[in-house]
């Protein structure tokens, strides 16, 4: 299989991730549930993972790193902490359902900044008009459909200026773009562990500048007589047993990202994306959505075919051993903004572990189809 769906899950991972999971399975119990060696070893793995994440994202203290089961989980905590029914919340036109559905469920007044693809100046200008007086801003760092890198530094700066709390969705950027939590200073950044951070599915991180409102309530291993959740992070937002085996794998994934550097990993993905664009640009039945400016791109490429419905196209590719994703990618708003809502797109997304040979083979199959 040629795996080109890393924007969904980093199926290709460094081997130490699996080894970390297996080691945790055989040596870790639960942190905070005892002081015997298996519990303390688990606690050590968990703290090491927090410390590594704090280093990677420039977070002042490891307790500001909360483990979640996914970016969606983290976004739900963040949104429920800041948004109340009727609040006006400004979002980009490229948000995922992980942002829009919780806002919709809360009854927020969703104010969408709908600007063209790969037009950051236009987006900044529209955000500037809408941010003053808003209750919160929620913005993705990179569109999961088009790989468009949004100008989150500028958006964060405006949020600080107008004192509007900001939530960043780093689902497609964590591990691939430099994210400086201290400099951006948002209320929260949510990210999955299983994409650019190369960890297992079922892991995620929420970086917190605020203590937040718990989404779930229960045991934390401490202050058991107290019926309110603890005030201190991370326990406040981490009721129940942690996914220690997943966290152990995530720790190894993040160590790999730190050793290679996000910039290098992204550069490899961009190189593969450019190769794909070169190979497919002569095909007049395929329309590609991309920018020539690498600064505006991560390794995600959407396309439509004049010959096939995107789902049929993806099925044909799958039958030839190419794994790609088709449809709306859980982000109908992004398609609406870009004008592809009626047809969806075929999306191919790259991993630093993909090779040029794989790209040549996959694009050869695409041209032939």
């Amino acid at each position, binding site marked *: 299989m040629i795996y080109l769906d890393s924007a969904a899950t980093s199926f290709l991972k460094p081997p130490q991730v699996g080894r970390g999971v297996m080691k945790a399975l055989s040596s870790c119990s639960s942190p905070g549930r005892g*002081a015997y060696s298996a519990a303390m070893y688990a606690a050590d793995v968990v703290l090491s993972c927090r410390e590594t994440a704090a280093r990677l994202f420039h977070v002042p203290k490891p307790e500001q790193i909360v483990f979640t089961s996914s970016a969606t989980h983290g976004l739900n905590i963040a949104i429920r902490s800041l948004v109340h029914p009727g609040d006006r919340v400004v979002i980009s036109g490229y948000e995922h359902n992980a942002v829009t559905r919780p806002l919709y469920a809360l009854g927020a007044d969703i104010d969408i900044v709908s600007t063209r693809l790969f037009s950051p100046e236009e987006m900044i200008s529209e955000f500037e008009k809408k941010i003053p007086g808003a209750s919160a801003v929620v913005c993705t760092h990179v569109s999961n459909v088009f790989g468009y890198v949004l100008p989150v530094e500028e958006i964060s700066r405006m949020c600080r200026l107008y004192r509007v709390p900001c939530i960043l969705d780093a689902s497609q950027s964590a591990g691939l773009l430099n994210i400086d939590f201290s400099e951006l200073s948002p209320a929260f950044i949510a990210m999955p562990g299983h994409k650019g951070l190369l960890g297992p599915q079922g892991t995620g991180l929420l970086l917190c500048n605020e203590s937040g409102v718990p989404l779930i309530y229960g045991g934390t*291993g*401490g*202050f058991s007589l107290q019926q309110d959740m*603890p005030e201190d992070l991370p*326990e406040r937002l981490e009721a129940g047993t942690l996914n220690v085996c997943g966290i152990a794998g995530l720790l190894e994934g993040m160590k790999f990202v730190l050793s290679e550097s996000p910039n290098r990993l992204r550069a490899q993905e961009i190189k593969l994306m450019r190769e794909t664009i070169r190979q497919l640009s002569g095909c007049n039945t395929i329309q590609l959505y991309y920018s020539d400016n690498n600064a505006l791109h991560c390794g995600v490429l959407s396309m439509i075919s004049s010959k096939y419905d995107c789902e049929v196209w993806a099925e044909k590719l799958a039958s030839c051993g190419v794994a790609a994703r088709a449809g709306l990618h859980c982000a109908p708003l992004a398609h609406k903004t870009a004008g592809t809502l009626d047809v969806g797109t075929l999306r191919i997304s790259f991993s630093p572990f993909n090779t040029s040979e794989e790209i040549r083979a996959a694009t050869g199959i695409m041209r032939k189809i």
Partner: protein
Amino acid sequence: MPILIMFRSLTYAQRGARVLERSGISASIAKAPMKMTDKGCSYCVRISESGLTMALTALERGDIVYGKVLRFSGEGEYQEVLS
């Protein structure tokens, strides 16, 4: 006699123990004695009495918040050194 430094959570106790180890003070994490906690289960860091002054300085320098400091006085009894 061992000294117990109480912490608000396991995460704080771990961070405290790491700061102490980095300062050359031998420290081990333990569950705090039930009768010394007013909110239920809690964690503490155990050190030797000779390292107490240095330990508290290291924790303060490391910006690690700690709670009561207790001395084990034998037969399950604890005496508050600092609160």
